[in-house]
Each structure stands twice: as structure tokens, then as C-alpha cells.
């Protein structure tokens, strides 16, 4: 019986290992520090006009001329098709309010990068949004067609299309999903 109890303890230990390690004070502190830093940087940049406000648009329909989001918002049908295409990895761009098109990319310096569209962008929340307990991150596909404010490194890009490595994102409402926007 003792062996069995030892085994149980091991299994529980492993089950809770993730919690314990992830809940380690250092990790929690580091996380809180990261969030605080993110908010300070983002809100300062927003005040100084260094953030970019725009809409996420789906690349295929934009470049083949099916939709013209520069001139009018997506219709409901266009939006659904755009999101479905984005879900299948067609490239998503950020169309800024001033008409500049940004190609979201991951930061320069990484030889192999993951798909930017699968990347969780840390979300900056207002105090009110925090109280509501909204999602603390977002990915691009569900955000197609929505207005966002982003902060990140901007690269010169090519032929007028600039690159952007989004560091932080802010937007109104809930990221989730399941509810049709």
C-alpha cells in the first residue's frame, strides 16, 4: 500500500508541477512586471502618436480586388469570406487610417520565424477592460475587419508596403469569439 501511495504522490506532484512552477513567485512577478511595462510603453506611445491605428484586412481579397476596404468597410459576406480565407493562412495586413499598408511580420533577427498569424499578440487593457476580465491576448484571424491600435517595430518594407512586428495590441470589446461579431 505504501508503494501505491508513493505512486499517487508522484502522479499528483506531476499534475501540480505545472501549476507550482508556473505559479512560482518569480514567474508571477515577472509576468506582472511585463504587463506593467507593456502598459507604460503602449500608453506613452499612444500619447506621442507612435502607435498605429488601423484595420486588419485579408490579403487575397485585397490584392485581387474583390474587396476595397480602403474605400468602404467589409460587407457581412465579404467579412465572413475574408476570415475564412485568413483561417486558411492567406496573409493578413494592417491597413492604417492614413492608407499605409503594413505587412505584419515577426521581429527581424530570427532565422526561422513562426507564422505571424498564429502568434498571440499581448493585449493592452484599459482599467475598465481589466475589471470586465477580457482576454489578455489576441491573434489576427478573428480580428480581421476590426479596428485596432498596435505598437511595434516598423520596417521600411517593399514597394510602399511597410513591415511591422506588432509588440502590443489594443482594441475595444472582447476578442472571443464563438459569438459572431
Amino acid at each position: 500500500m505504501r508503494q501505491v501511495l508513493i505512486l499517487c504522490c508522484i502522479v499528483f506532484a506531476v499534475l501540480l508541477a505545472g501549476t507550482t512552477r508556473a505559479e512560482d513567485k518569480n514567474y508571477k512577478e515577472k509576468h506582472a512586471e511585463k504587463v506593467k511595462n507593456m502598459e507604460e510603453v503602449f500608453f506613452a506611445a499612444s500619447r506621442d502618436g507612435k502607435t498605429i491605428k488601423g484595420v486588419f484586412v485579408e490579403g487575397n481579397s485585397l490584392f485581387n480586388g474583390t474587396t476595397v476596404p480602403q474605400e468602404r468597410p467589409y460587407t457581412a459576406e465579404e467579412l465572413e469570406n475574408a476570415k475564412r480565407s485568413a483561417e486558411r493562412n492567406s496573409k493578413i495586413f494592417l491597413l492604417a487610417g492614413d492608407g499605409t499598408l503594413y505587412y505584419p511580420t515577426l521581429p527581424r533577427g530570427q532565422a526561422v520565424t513562426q507564422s505571424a498569424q498564429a502568434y498571440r499578440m499581448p493585449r493592452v487593457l484599459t482599467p475598465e477592460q481589466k475589471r470586465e476580465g477580457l482576454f489578455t491576448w489576441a491573434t489576427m484571424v478573428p480580428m480581421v475587419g476590426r479596428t485596432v491600435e498596435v505598437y511595434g517595430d516598423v520596417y521600411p518594407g517593399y514597394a510602399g508596403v511597410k513591415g511591422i512586428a506588432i509588440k502590443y495590441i489594443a482594441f475595444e470589446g472582447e476578442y472571443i469569439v464563438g459569438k459572431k461579431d
Partner: protein
Amino acid sequence: MATKKPISFKAIFYTTISLVWIFGLSAIGHIVMVLIEKYNPGIKYDFAWTSALVGFFAIYSTRFMKSDGWQSFIGCLGGLGLWFAFEYSLMYGGHRLGVTYTWNGSYPEYRMMKWTFMLLIMVFVYLLFQESVRCNFIFFLRRKLRLMRGAIATGKISNYGPRTAFEYIMVTWTFYVMLMIGYDEELFGAHSWFIYVLFFASFSVFFYLCYKLLGYDRFGANLRYAIPTVTILWNDIEILAKWGMLKEPWVHINWTIMSVIIAGFVISTYLIVKDLRRRKDGMIESKDIT
């Protein structure tokens, strides 16, 4: 069947404890993954490998256990360990393949899991014809589809551990695939008739299974039957969350609610272990075999 007996307080007690334990296990499993992702994602694949190894050895250890209660208890934990590893393997695969989140918010690993449906069907077909399987649902299908060529399987099962682990994995896998297929807007959709039917069917079947569960008045069979019972209820929780009507405390890290769930899990674990230790000489009863 054991359900023909009058329902005793003892059976209610055992059923409640089993349900609380399996529910707590699922909730803790979820929050562990959420906390790792939030605070320390760097350890997730180490955790996955550790879970796989511990899961395997937990299942292996059941071969040395005499009581079906212990076999089921440890087998369930072994199944959870392997399941963790499976989910993380899909997460890794999704990362390598650049799988995105869906536009209605489903995670890459679950998008990938959805397309294992044919594999699931193949395993299920095997189980349907595998005569030593004692699952009540498969018995039902065998009867209705006239698949049995002889009498149903009876006799002693020496080790319930691997069976319980497999049951945990299969039940969890099946319902994940069903939900993901239901959420797929190109097939059905989160607000489709399929999801509504699944929601109401799960809700009603949960109570039916609880009633059946009351027929098993000892840990072992009770724990094993609590796995599908809780997982079916879990469908409703997932659907309510998908509809935006419920904020899952294990996803949104609501420690007040999670504390209650963890306390329930700890107390039920204590009661199960205490009971199993008391019955250390207990052997498998014939009613547990059918």
C-alpha cells in the same frame, strides 16, 4: 444490472465523490495548461514529456495492483497524463505547421485534433467488433446493429488500469472531436442545430448516466463510469463558454471558484484513497464485471 437494486445513501455518496473527483481532475488539468501558457510557456514541452512518461508508468504500475478500485484510480491518472502529452504534441505540430486560430476562436491544437476524426472512427470500429470490450454504449450498438455472433463477453478482468486510461482518452477524444466538428462554421457552426442537439442531448444523458452510476456502490466501477458522465456534462460547459454565456474559471483563472473545485478534488481524493485502503483485501466483484 446493478441498477435494479434500491438506491442507497452509500451509492449516492460514492457517486458524488466520483463525480467531484473526475470533474476536479478535468478542471485542474485545464488550469495547469492555462497557467503554464500564461506564466511559463517555456516548460510546456518538458511538462508534456513528463506527463507522457508518468502516464505510461502509472498505467504500467496497475499491473501490480490487486484491487480494481486502485487500478481504475491510477489508470485514470495515467490516461490524463497521456492525454496531456497528446494535446501538447498537437500544439507543437500546430506551431511547426503555422496553424492559425480559427475566426471563431478555436485553438490550433483543437483544429488539428478535429481532423483525427477518421482515426477515431477506425479505433471505434475496432472497439465495436472487439468482443472483450464491456462498454455499455458499445453493447447497445452491438445489439442494435446485430454485430454479436455469440454471447457477450463475461469473466474476470485482471487489470482495469489500462482500460480506464483508454476509456478516459477515448471519451475525451470523442467529445473534443464532436465539439470541434460542431463548431466548424463550414460544417455546422457554434450556433447550429448540431450544437443545440449536442447541448441538450449531453444535458439529459448526464442525468441518465448519473442515475446509472448510482447502481455502482464502490469505487472502481463507479470511478470508471464517472468518466463519461462528467465528460458529457463537460460538453455543456464548453458549449456555454463558446456561446459566451459562461466564463470558465480554469481559463480565466478565477481563483475563488477554482479553490472550491480544488478543495473538492482534494477531499474526494482523500475519501477515495481512504476507502480503497480500507478495502485493500477486496477483490473484484462479479457485478463490476458486466
